[in-house]
């Protein structure tokens, strides 16, 4: 459905996105992760045809973003990060306008607007002036305009920012429901959200793609595995014992009497226990530790990208 190949975007001399390639299949929900200024928004803006790419290609449903922009825009619903709206307009007339612009036939204008307004829980708010809405309802109006015309692809830039917890849950449920029919790309800072919604994750750091895999594969632990240990011993002694064990790559303390040992072999648990006990330490607990998305994220974004620092990839996405 979505194909991105060697996408590069420069803002003047600053590279916001460098050589990113990925594909999204029909009906997938993709989580777009990365620290601020990593290039998430820029990538999304290229996909929607708002910003032209400096290099590489992006296509949606087989239509190139650059050469067939209208075809692409017909297939994409977009919620920009800051949710820009016409403040002076009434919600309903704004949505009618969007429906007209998106080419909804005159006969079904009203029903389409009612459909998206109901889906986004706008209720009576549709008679209000947009400028007077709360942040949460603005967000919903933004989402509603993206949904008009039932586009095959939804690109949502941080859809739950600024909402209260109840609204977040509602919007997430809405996105999840939409996921059965739509291809969705969501960018977010909230990692649990990705865990809840997305089947696949793309992590971007300093304009480069640093990780891309299904949720299951990413959190399975990859090549190494870690164990959580509770040891009744002074920190130095315990760490020395852990570091002395076979196959232990790294070991560190996470709390009083709590340590983590990262091993090359995930079956090495019993051996590790034997080693600790043989050093005369009291082992209270040993538990394989599965990686959370947070671990994966921190690992992926803390890797220094070669050549990224001198050109100042930070914040480039906001330019």
């Amino acid at each position: 459905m979505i194909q991105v190949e060697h996408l590069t975007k420069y803002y003047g001399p600053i590279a916001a996105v460098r050589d990113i390639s990925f594909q999204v299949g029909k009906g997938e929900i993709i989580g777009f992760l990365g620290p601020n200024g990593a290039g998430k928004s820029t990538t999304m803006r290229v996909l929607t045809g708002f910003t032209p790419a400096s290099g590489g290609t992006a296509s949606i449903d087989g239509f190139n973003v650059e050469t067939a922009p209208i075809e692409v825009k017909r297939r994409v619903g977009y919620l920009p990060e800051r949710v820009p709206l016409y403040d002076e307009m009434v919600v309903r007339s704004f949505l009618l306008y969007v429906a007209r612009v998106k080419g909804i036939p005159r006969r079904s204008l009203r029903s389409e607007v009612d459909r998206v307004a109901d889906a986004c829980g706008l209720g009576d708010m549709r008679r209000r002036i947009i400028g007077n809405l709360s942040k949460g309802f603005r967000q919903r109006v933004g989402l509603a305009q993206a949904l008009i015309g039932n586009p095959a692809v939804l690109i949502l830039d941080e859809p739950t920012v600024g909402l209260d917890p109840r609204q977040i849950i509602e919007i997430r449920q809405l996105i999840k429901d939409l996921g059965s029919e739509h291809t969705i790309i969501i960018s977010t800072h909230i990692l649990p959200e990705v865990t809840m919604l997305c089947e696949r994750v793309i992590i971007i750091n300093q304009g480069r793609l640093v990780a891309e895999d299904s949720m299951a594969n990413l959190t399975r632990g990859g090549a190494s595995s870690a164990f959580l240990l509770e040891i009744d011993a002074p920190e130095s002694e315990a760490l020395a014992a852990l570091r002395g064990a076979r196959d232990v790559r790294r070991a560190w303390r996470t709390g009083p009497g709590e340590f983590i040992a990262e091993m090359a072999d995930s079956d090495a648990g019993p051996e590790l226990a034997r080693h600790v006990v043989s050093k005369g330490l009291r082992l209270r607990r040993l538990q394989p530790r599965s990686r959370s998305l947070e671990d994966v994220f921190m690992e992926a974004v803390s890797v220094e990208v070669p050549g990224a620092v001198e050109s100042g990839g930070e914040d480039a996405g906001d330019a």
Partner: protein
Amino acid sequence: MRNTWAVCRREFASYFQTPIGYVVVGVLALVTGLAFTISFTYYAKMSQAPSEYAMTGVPDFEETLLSPFLVFCGTLFMFLTPLITMRLLAEERNRGTMELLLTYPLRDREIIFGKYLAALGMLLVIMLLIGVDLLVLHRFVEVEPAVLWFGLLTVFLMGAAFISLGLFVSAMTRNQITAGTITFGVCLLLFILGTLGEDLPSGNPAPEGLAEGVRTVFGFVYGLFRGVVLELPMDAHAKNMALGIVEPVDIAYYVLVSVFFLFLTFRALESRKWRG
């Protein structure tokens, strides 16, 4: 076409969802109404006692009242069009709604013509107000239709040219105030140019002592400059037209100014593709 209409409709409606539409219409109604009343009273006095105003007979109605009044209205647009056009594209950029506008399945021409038509719609509203003044007039005097219609056409074309200029400036800026000020400045410049042109001598002003070749070149360049200064001002082509004298050149002038700035607006909007 449908998309152009949708953009136009939203834009036009938002003139009246914000104070700007009422301000422009109100100010114009007040000023034109006042100007009309004053010149009408003056004309009435003149026609009752022509000799007191050093006139031999009853002054020509079209020449002394109608066409100057229409030209005045056109000139007034110079002050008001910046208010109509300043937000057209600058505000979209400033509020970030440009991001929505440019990701909807709209072509550049649908966006630009939609906005241009919305501003022209405001112009029509204003002209309706002027029309009210002229209706009153109709009760008292038999107006020569050619003068009236060409006069109104002049006012409209003049306004359209100003709007096209303003749209272009708005496409180049992010801030409404900047857009408005620049538009007003350019309009004013074009206007003042007219006054300046009247003072330029028609011959070759190059000093006698210069070589013949240099003199010729200087004269040619000066001739071009003088021509531009005389022809460029917005009101230079209005006076004859408002008198009912149809010169294709005059109509072409306003149409060309509009087309020229619309063309520049297209280029300005397109520049997002290569400016990065």
